[in-house]
């Protein structure tokens, strides 16, 4: 066998489609077996444009003049499978064109699969991110951000002493009767509106709502970051709570009336519980605020003696005398009014 014959055998047998064309007429002169297998068949066109009608011959001839090469891609169906073939034309001696065809179907299929997969993964990542944000939002509702950061980093929260802070305790008058006599879902919806308004008011003055227990609402100033004028902040908040309820009552059939107690002192804040954890505060100031609240008539604010002395220059506040407070002995109590 001559070298030429071996070369021809090789050229015929390789897994790459090879064809030779006349550069002027674009007529096929030679096609190897692989080429015939892909594009052959009965009545195989002998001219390039007839075989690949979608080929941009104009662009091809420009590229061939410019660089001597042109590449393109064609897709066609063999049985029901889409084959994708990369075409590579090179100018050769004697006004010949060499066309090399590579089967890149698998690459295209893999590309599609990677597209599909990455879209699924990206969608899942977005969902996880959204869920994480929701969890974070939920946790931030039950604990201050600094405590949440600590919890996220270490998985635990060390109880922390905050001193001094001011505590506001609010309770609604006749709430139990209200729930019993009216549609409970309406009552709870209204309670939710009111608490949301309280949260917004407190936020304006730098108060941190700690919790609500039924109709009791507890908020604190001076926590988690120390605030020098925590008493002033809590007094302002208390006045606006009452003001908000009075205005709301004017336009609503259900009358909401509250009692408020304000005290100052130290508290310990921590996350309590493991599965159903809540952030809570403990300390005499919390209990005292609760007791003082009981001395208020509806829509009144009762203030601890120590708080009163700090804020009396800036607020309309009046001493109502000494009272015996359970667990705290006898103390002067004060009444805070809205001077607006």
């Amino acid at each position, binding site marked *: 066998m001559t070298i030429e014959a071996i070369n021809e055998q090789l050229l015929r047998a390789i897994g790459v489609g090879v064809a030779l064309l006349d550069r002027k007429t674009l007529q096929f002169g030679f096609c190897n077996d692989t080429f015939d297998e892909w594009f052959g068949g009965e009545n195989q066109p002998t001219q390039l444009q007839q075989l690949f009608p979608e080929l941009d011959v104009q662009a091809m001839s420009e590229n061939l003049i410019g660089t001597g090469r042109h590449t393109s891609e064609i*897709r066609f169906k063999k*049985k*029901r*499978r*889409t084959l*994708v073939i990369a075409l590579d034309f090179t100018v050769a001696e004697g006004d010949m064109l060499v066309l090399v065809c590579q089967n890149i179907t*698998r690459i*295209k*299929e*893999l590309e*599609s*699969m990677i*597209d*599909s*997969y990455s879209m*699924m*993964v990206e969608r*899942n990542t977005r969902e996880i991110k959204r869920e994480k944000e929701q969890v974070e939002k939920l946790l931030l509702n039950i604990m201050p951000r600094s405590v949440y950061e600590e919890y996220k980093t270490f998985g635990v929260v060390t109880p922390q002493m905050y001193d001094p802070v001011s505590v506001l305790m609010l309770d609604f008058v006749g709430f139990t009767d209200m729930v019993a006599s009216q549609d409970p879902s309406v009552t709870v919806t209204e309670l939710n509106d009111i608490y949301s308004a309280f949260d917004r008011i407190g936020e304006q003055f730098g108060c941190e709502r700690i919790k609500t227990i039924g109709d009791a609402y507890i908020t604190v100033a001076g926590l988690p970051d120390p605030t020098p004028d925590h008493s002033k902040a809590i007094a302002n908040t208390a006045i606006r709570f009452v003001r908000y309820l009075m205005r709301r009552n004017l336009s609503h059939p259900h009358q909401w009336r509250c009692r408020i107690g304000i005290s100052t002192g130290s508290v310990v804040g921590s996350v309590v519980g493991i599965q159903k954890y809540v952030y809570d505060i403990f300390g005499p100031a919390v209990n005292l605020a609760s007791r003082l609240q009981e001395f208020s008539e509806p829509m009144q604010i009762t203030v601890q003696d120590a708080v009163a002395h700090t804020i009396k220059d800036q607020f309309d506040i009046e001493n109502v005398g000494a009272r015996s407070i359970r667990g705290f002995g006898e103390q002067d109590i004060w009444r805070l009014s809205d001077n607006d």
Partner: protein
Amino acid sequence: MAERTLYESYGGFSQVSKIVLSFYDSLLDNDEIGPFFDDVDMSRIVDHQTKFIASLLGGPAAYTDKQLQQLHAHLDITDAHFDELETLLRETLLGHGMASDDVETVVAEFGKRRPLIVR
């Protein structure tokens, strides 16, 4: 810690991608089921098979029953077609070295969808 899915225990996407491609091949070569894909764009078939295998193995795809129903509503799929696909699926998974009880788990999962797909 959640239980590992078959998708994870058989090597994640890098392995599952091979299953998907050979499933794709045998699907198109099959003259019972292949015709359903005659006029479907290649990238769509690949996308569909990727999600199909991933969702059966517990990977990052999930079709709701309603989606499956809608996607197949315009097709005349008979029980025989469904059986054939089940055979192809089983062969493909076994061909990729999946343990036979895992294969049966997947096939059973696939079988649950029959009422949504078959006319």
